[in-house]
């Protein structure tokens, strides 16, 4: 059994809640910083992708996990970021400015899309974002002078002046730095009043409103922040793939992002990272498992869809807190041993929390 002795109010909002966390995160930081020294090119590439998806996941997590607004079109923002980056870098802009442009444009479009949709609740926002996702994909495909149409667009290596970041190691460090920065910003946001307003809206709009939270303003803020962060991830994504085309930002990418936050664990920053790891490693595991499956199943094009769908359903039904929730439960079990109660994490049914009115 372990007790956390709090002697100061600052401890409640400290980033590291427990003393051991500093050591573990320090070790992780060292390991990641030294990754190119001990890992091969394949692993560097995979970890870069995980970092990029983690940034995108953080963006969606802020919206879906912390503000309680579901978006089924977030790949569009990934696309806006990626295309903006590709276009601006192609025009010879220095990398940091292009990155700001990608994030900023994405956030601005987030405001535009969010404003009308946020007046209505729940499912309408999901459908509005779905609609936006389809429209954006069509725009990427048709606006040929900027996006290169269905043929796609080559992306130049990130550069500041004459200094070019061509190697995969440099892109890895770029992603790592951006990922850490975004994570710190999100953590900081969440422990401040804005983040708490988001969480209050998620838990109950009515009570948040009666506590003086301006719903429309905070919802729009959450939506545009989320879109901006996903736009940043899109910019990195464009550099990682070195090629952008419309079908990369379709509905299946949006659903992949949703899968990421749900499997990782809605409402936890860790969840974005666990979900990103899951999303990147799962296809590899599936292709490994193909050798042991009967040919009719292994050769089917839909195998990955079945596994993803089944995993998603499994998590929603049996572990709605996701991978991170499972970890918290295991940790709590050991921390409270032998006093752990079975019903500690039981979900409440909310038959009466209807969105429709009596």
């Amino acid at each position: 059994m372990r007790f956390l002795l709090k002697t100061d109010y600052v401890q409640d909002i400290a980033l590291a809640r427990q003393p051991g966390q500093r050591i573990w995160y320090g070790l992780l930081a060292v390991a990641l910083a030294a990754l190119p020294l001990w890992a091969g090119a394949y692993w560097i590439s995979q970890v870069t992708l995980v970092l990029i998806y983690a940034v995108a996941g953080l963006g969606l997590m802020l919206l879906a996990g912390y503000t309680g607004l579901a978006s089924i079109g977030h790949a569009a923002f990934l696309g806006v970021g990626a295309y903006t980056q590709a276009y601006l870098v192609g025009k010879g802009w220095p990398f940091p400015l292009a990155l700001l442009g990608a994030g900023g444009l994405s956030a601005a479009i987030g405001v535009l899309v969010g404003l009308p949709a946020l007046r209505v609740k729940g499912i309408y926002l999901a459908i509005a974002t779905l609609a936006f996702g389809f429209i954006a994909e069509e725009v990427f495909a048709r606006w040929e002078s900027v996006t290169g149409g269905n043929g796609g667009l080559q992306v130049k290596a990130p550069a500041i002046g004459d200094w070019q970041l061509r190697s995969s190691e440099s892109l890895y460090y770029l992603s790592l730095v951006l990922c850490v920065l975004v994570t710190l910003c999100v953590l900081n946001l969440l422990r401040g009043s804005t983040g708490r307003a988001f969480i209050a809206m998620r838990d109950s709009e009515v009570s948040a409103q009666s506590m003086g939270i301006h719903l429309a303003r905070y919802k729009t803020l959450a939506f545009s922040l989320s879109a901006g962060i996903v736009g940043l991830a899109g910019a990195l994504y464009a550099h990682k793939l070195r090629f952008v085309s419309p079908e990369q930002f379709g509905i299946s990418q949006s659903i992949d992002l949703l899968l990421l936050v749900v499997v990782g664990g809605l409402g936890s920053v860790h969840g974005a990272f666990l979900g990103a790891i899951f999303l990147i490693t799962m296809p590899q595991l599936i292709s490994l498992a193909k050798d042991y499956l009967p040919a009719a199943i292994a050769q089917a094009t839909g195998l990955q869809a079945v596994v993803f769908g089944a995993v998603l359903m499994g998590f929603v039904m049996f572990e709605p807190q996701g991978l991170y929730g499972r970890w918290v439960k295991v940790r709590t079990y050991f921390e409270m041993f032998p006093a752990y109660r079975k019903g500690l994490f039981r979900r409440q049914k909310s038959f009466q929390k209807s969105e429709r009115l009596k």
Partner: protein
Amino acid sequence: MDFLQQVFSGIALGCIYALIALGFVLIYKATETVNFAQGELMMLGAFAGLALVKFAGLPFWIAVLVALVGITAFGALVERLVIRPVLGQPQFTVVMLTIGLGYVVRGLITMVPVIGSETSAFDPPYKGMVWKVGGLILSYEQGTVIAVTIVLCCAFYMLFKHTKVGIGMQAASQNQLAAHYMGIPVKRLNGLVWGLSAGAAGLAGLLLAPFTFVHVNMGYIGLKAFPAAVIGGFGSLPGAVVGGLAIGVVESLSGYYLPEGFKDVAAYVLVLAMLMVKPNGLFGTATRKKV
């Protein structure tokens, strides 16, 4: 004349959207959840009909009937096994659950030998026949779609207005808890609603098959039925039909008069405009939550 012809084919297409949207709205009214797998249920209906004709050698009409019964049963089964355990969880949970279900169904269909990964034709006996009314050309397929939609709408109307089951469903959709206290078997009704809406989707799939052929991605058309449901106001059955027709006509006209590309996004542009102007849809009612 071109205009009328386009409107007409838009109405036929709109009826398909309307049938799928009816399924959404039925489920939404009954359980306050949104079924993102509706398009996949539609695809499943078409594949069931195709498989029965191809493998079991059944005649067309019997295959259609068996497929409809099968898909209805499947809908009820899904409700029992997947949806009921998470009843009472936030809306988003069920959205994700049905998205997962859609993935699984689509993936499993690709594993079906011979037809799974192919695009196959599933032709009704009346394929290719046309009526000529004045200068309008009206194919039997389109006529069937419209006729079936009208019949189904009348059937639903009778069900909800004049039968005990339908009135029970209305009660449950207004207030589940109160309906439960009044002795209405809410859970069983929910199963029935899922069955009915899957049946409507399956019917839409069978009707759509002569136009688009049967393939594993035909379920994506279900995503266009969301705008239909939203335009009509998500909780209104007549709204779903009107919304579906509106989407169909707008899509058909924009395909004819506007540059390429507008046809595919017309439905989505329309729904975004609708949300801006009248967020609760044509037939929806604005409501505020009481504490």
